[in-house]
Each structure stands twice: as C-alpha cells, then as structure tokens.
C-alpha cells in the first residue's frame, strides 16, 4: 500500500497552494467586507477575469476535462489535494470549469450537444446550472413533479424548481423532469438542456441565504424545447445526475477538509498567544482536546477522501463511501470551525475574520447535495440490506 501521491500531483498541489496564497487569499478581505455590508460575498467580473487568466496561464484550467477538449483529464485522486487548497479561501472561485456539470455532460451529450454545450463550457465561455430540487422534492428528488411531455417534435416542460444556484448568470440549465410518471426514478426521469433565454422559462425570485449567498426559484410554464434538448436517454436521467452529485460531494468533502484545516491552523496559531487566568489558551486541556480531535477528524476525512477517489478512479462503485465521506467531512468541519470560533472568543464572531464565513459555507454544505441525515440513511440502508 502506498500513501504517497505521485510526484507530479504533489507538484500540482504545490502550484495550487501557491495560486490560492498569491491570488485568492489577497482578495478575501474585500469579499468579506462586501458580505459584511450586505451586498453579497461576490467577486467582480474584473476580478474573475484576472483569476481566469492566471488559471489558464498556469494550466489550471480543465483539470478533469477530457484531453480531446484541451483538458488535463486528471484522475480524482489528483484533485483531492487541489480542492482542499481551493476550499480554504472564502473567495467564491473554483478552478474552471466547475467539475460536476462537466462530468454529467461528458457522460451524456451527443455530438451536436458536445459542440454546442460541452465544448464552450470547457473553454469557459458559458455558465452551466442544474435544476433538480422542487418545493415538494428536495432530499427525495424522485418525488419531483416538473413534467416533460413530447408533443410532435417538441418537449413541453411545466413545473417549478427551487434553490437553484447560479440561475442569475447561467447560460443553460440541466433540468430534470418527469417523462413517465409511472416509472418514477426507475426510468421515468429525464434530463434536458434548457437555454436560459428559452420562452416559458423564468427566474421567479432570488432567495438570499447565509453568508451573502443566494439561490433562485425558476418557473417553467409551457416551456418548449426541440427534441434535441433531451440530454442522454429518455427516462435515464437519474444515473448521470447521481454521477454529477458524486463528483460534487467528493469536491465538497475536500473543500471541507481545507476549511477545517484552516480553522485548526488559525486556532493553533492564536491559542499560544492568548492569555487568560495567567496562562496561554493552548495550555488549557479543553483547547488541547479541540486541537487533537480536530487533527484526528481531518486526518480521517483526508484518508476517506483519498480512498474514495482511488476507488472512483478504478471504476468501482463508491455509493457508500461518498455518503460516508460527505456526511463526515461536512459535520467534522462544522465542529472544528465552531470550536475555532469559540477559541477566538468575540474576535471569532467578527466579520473581519474569515471564520464566520467558513462556518456559513460549511453550514450550507450540510444541506446541499443531500443533507447529512440522508447520507447516513444511505449508508445504513446499504449495510442493513447486506
């Protein structure tokens, strides 16, 4: 058994760590300040362009995109450390193009869709969003009601989608809809490529969320799509959607590892400097327990992430591993950030330190892409079924 990453992936990790330190973290105080005055934790178009240019120059573009499209086609194992570093910063920037939709599209597009949707996406020319959740179907997406009916050579979509990220800037939505009610998740749900300017599709409202984030509600009202908008096979949208979710969950887990590591590093730096009752905070057993437990939790999560990525790269099923990892990583990060905030006292509550924003981000991650309880349920069900 070899726990060491190949040399080139270690060098990649170093490169990304430098990118984060030199290009993302310097923007962070400004992002925190924007969030603090209530205008959202965003980066400007100019800032994004500059970051994109640097990512491109360093070859950090399309790390897991197919080589045929100019990507690096790196395995999941190479991305664990990469995303850990990217996750550390509270600047809302991921190395483009964002992987989950890339994976789903790559698994499903036909030739025409490849050149019309996937290639521009890989080149960074478009923003891709995904619309699964509905007011009545969150944790249980199989309960979705949005329908797609084939009329002549057109698909007609009707329904509501909610909590949709990036709806304000998306060029298209991968939209899940029921094509056969009787079959449900087993053959009755399909994926469609819906351009954001399609008549009948509208953003009903913006829903502000924790930490200067927002999601959106969408309305699909007699939204007509050409037959060619069907993504993948009719009725078989669920499996590639799960692939997409798995990619995101592994990514989120590694972001959480990065966030937890940063929270721990901050506490470790601060605790020896802060004196109370005549001795340093780091001399208190409680704080020492926090540190030891955090290190243990992070180490466990990291090993789980390596192992899950390794299995994924071998083509094995990672259903159980992904759920264990997603639940463990988000929950441990939540605990570690919370304790670090506790250790910093009132200072930990301020919007000048990134800790509260780290807490916000982790808080959201305990919900999206499947709440913790659902993932535990998946694991338990899998075990009990034998």
């Amino acid at each position, binding site marked *: 058994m070899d726990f060491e990453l190949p*040399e080139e992936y*270690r*060098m*990649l990790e170093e*490169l990304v760590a430098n*990118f984060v330190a030199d290009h993302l973290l310097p923007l962070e105080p400004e992002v925190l300040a924007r969030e603090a005055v209530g205008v959202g934790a965003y980066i400007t178009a100019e800032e994004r362009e500059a970051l994109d240019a640097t990512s491109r120059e*360093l*070859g*950090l573009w399309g790390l897991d995109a197919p080589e045929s499209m100019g990507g*690096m086609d790196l395995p999941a194992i190479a991305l664990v450390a990469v995303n850990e570093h990217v996750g550390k910063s509270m600047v809302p920037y991921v190395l483009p193009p964002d992987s989950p939709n890339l994976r789903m599209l790559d698994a499903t597009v036909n030739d025409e869709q490849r050149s019309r949707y996937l290639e521009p996406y890989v080149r960074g020319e478009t923003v891709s969003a995904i619309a699964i959740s509905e007011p009545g179907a969150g944790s249980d997406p199989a309960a979705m009601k949005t329908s797609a009916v084939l009329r002549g050579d057109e698909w007609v979509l009707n329904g509501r989608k909610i909590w949709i990220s990036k709806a304000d800037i998306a060029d298209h939505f991968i939209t899940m809809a029921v094509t056969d009610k009787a079959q449900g998740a087993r053959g009755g749900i399909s994926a469609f490529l819906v351009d954001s300017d399609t008549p009948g599709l509208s953003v009903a409202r913006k829903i502000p969320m924790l930490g200067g984030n927002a999601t959106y509600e969408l309305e699909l009202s007699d939204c007509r799509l050409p037959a060619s908008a069907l993504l993948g096979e009719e009725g078989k949208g669920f499996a590639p959607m799960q692939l997409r979710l798995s990619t995101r969950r592994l990514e989120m887990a590694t972001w959480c590892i990065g966030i937890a590591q940063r929270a721990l590093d901050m506490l470790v730096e601060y605790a020896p400097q802060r004196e109370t009752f005549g001795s340093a905070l780091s001399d208190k057993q409680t704080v020492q327990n926090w540190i030891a437990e955090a290190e243990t939790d992070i180490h466990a999560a990291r090993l789980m992430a390596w192992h899950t990525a390794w299995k994924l790269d071998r083509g094995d099923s990672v259903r159980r591993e992904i759920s264990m990892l997603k639940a463990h990583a988000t929950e441990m990060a939540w605990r570690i950030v919370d304790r670090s905030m506790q250790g910093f006292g009132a200072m930990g509550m301020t919007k000048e330190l990134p800790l509260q924003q780290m807490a916000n981000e982790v808080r959201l991650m305990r919900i999206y892409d499947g709440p913790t309880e659902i993932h535990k349920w998946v694991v338990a069900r899998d075990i009990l079924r034998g």
Partner: protein
Amino acid sequence: MKVLVAVKRVVDYNVKVRAKADGSDVDLNNVKMAINPFCEIAVEEAVRLKEAGTATEVVAVSIGDKACQEQIRTALALGADRGIQVETEGAVEPLVVAKLLKGVIEKEQPQLVILGKQSIDGDNNQTGQMLGALTNMAQGTFASEVAIDGDKVNVTREVDGGLQTVSLNLPAIVTTDLRLNEPRYASLPNIMKAKKKPLDVHTPADLGVEPKAHLTTLKVEPPAERQAGIMVESVEQLVDKLKNEAKVIS
C-alpha cells in the same frame, strides 16, 4: 551556450524549524522540504537565458540522496532540460559539494554555472566561491543582474553600500542574490512535461571524488526567546529606558 544550475533540497522557508531534543541537528521529521529559494532564482535565470535564445541547454544538478530528485524535477518543471543527481548520503559540506560540482563541470563543460549565493539551511555562503577556486573559473557572487555579452558575462553584484558590476570571461560562475529575478510557478503542463525529461544519477566515485567530512556539528540549539515588549507611558519614559535600561543611547 550550456548552463549548469545547482539546486539544493532544504526545509521549506515557511517552516518554523526546531532543534532535535538532543541538540544534534535540526529536526527534519515530518517537515516540508523544498528547493532552496536562491537555487530557484538560479534556475529562473538560466531558463530566462534559454528563452532569450542565449542559452541552448539548461542542466540542473543536485547533490543528495534520492529525495533530492524531487527538487531536480521541480527545476525541470521550471524549464531546465535535463537533470543530474549526484547520489550522496547524509549531510554534505560545502567543500565536498564544490568538489562534486567540479566533477560535473568537467563532464558537462558548461559555459555558465549558476548557484544560489547560499542555502537557507546552513547559510554557509561558500560553495560558489570554493567552486571558483577549484575550477579556476571567474566568479560573480551576489548577482542582481546577469548579462551575457559575447564571450563575457557582466554581473551586477550587491555589495555593501551599493552595486558593483564586474565583467567575467566565460566560462564563469555566478551566485544569485534575492533581487536577481522573481521565479515563476511551474505550470501544470510543464510539470507533466518534466516527468519525461532525462535525469541521470552519478556516484561521487564516477566523478573521482571521495566525499570526506572535515566538519562536525557540535550542537544545534534554538535562539534565545525574545522577551515580551512593554508599552511606555511617555516619550520621557522611553528615553529614560533607552538610556538607563537598554543603554543604547547616552
């Protein structure tokens, strides 16, 4: 023109080093290692010479155990064409390094050799100068600018109180100072390319050198801890303390 650059594996400059409990050495257990920053500047300078069309080949050499291949690989990812490792065990002192480098120079016949002015672990600042003496090559140390001019190289040196420019006949040795350049990052495509670049391993015997130690480290201990500062109430109090306690003014 062929350029030889020497690179050393050292503790990463971000790491707060600790002495081992028995005081025998710095504790390198679980510590992040990296290319010595001055060596990185040397690689960058060589690669820039190549990009400018002045150099035709850049060869990176490191002396150490197998682990130092990682730093050679970094140099290759930064743009060096091939690597040489001279395999040694344990710590090697500047004189031994200089002798081994001399052996490599005899094999490779570079026109220009660029080294860091010192490495941040031992801070000896000796290897480049010793190499100059052993090879009889001209040396320009503490370079903040390097300009090739026909069969000469003009080296601007950072000396006490200002800059000095010397003109050296090639082949020559240059050691780098901090302000010579700002090294680039190794981009991902170049990291991938580096994997395929050749890396040869030599033993000291191949180079006709016996790595004999002349130095023994007696003790390594951390610097004395700084006392916490105090806030003074007034300028008068400050002047009084500087005069009578610190005794730095009279």
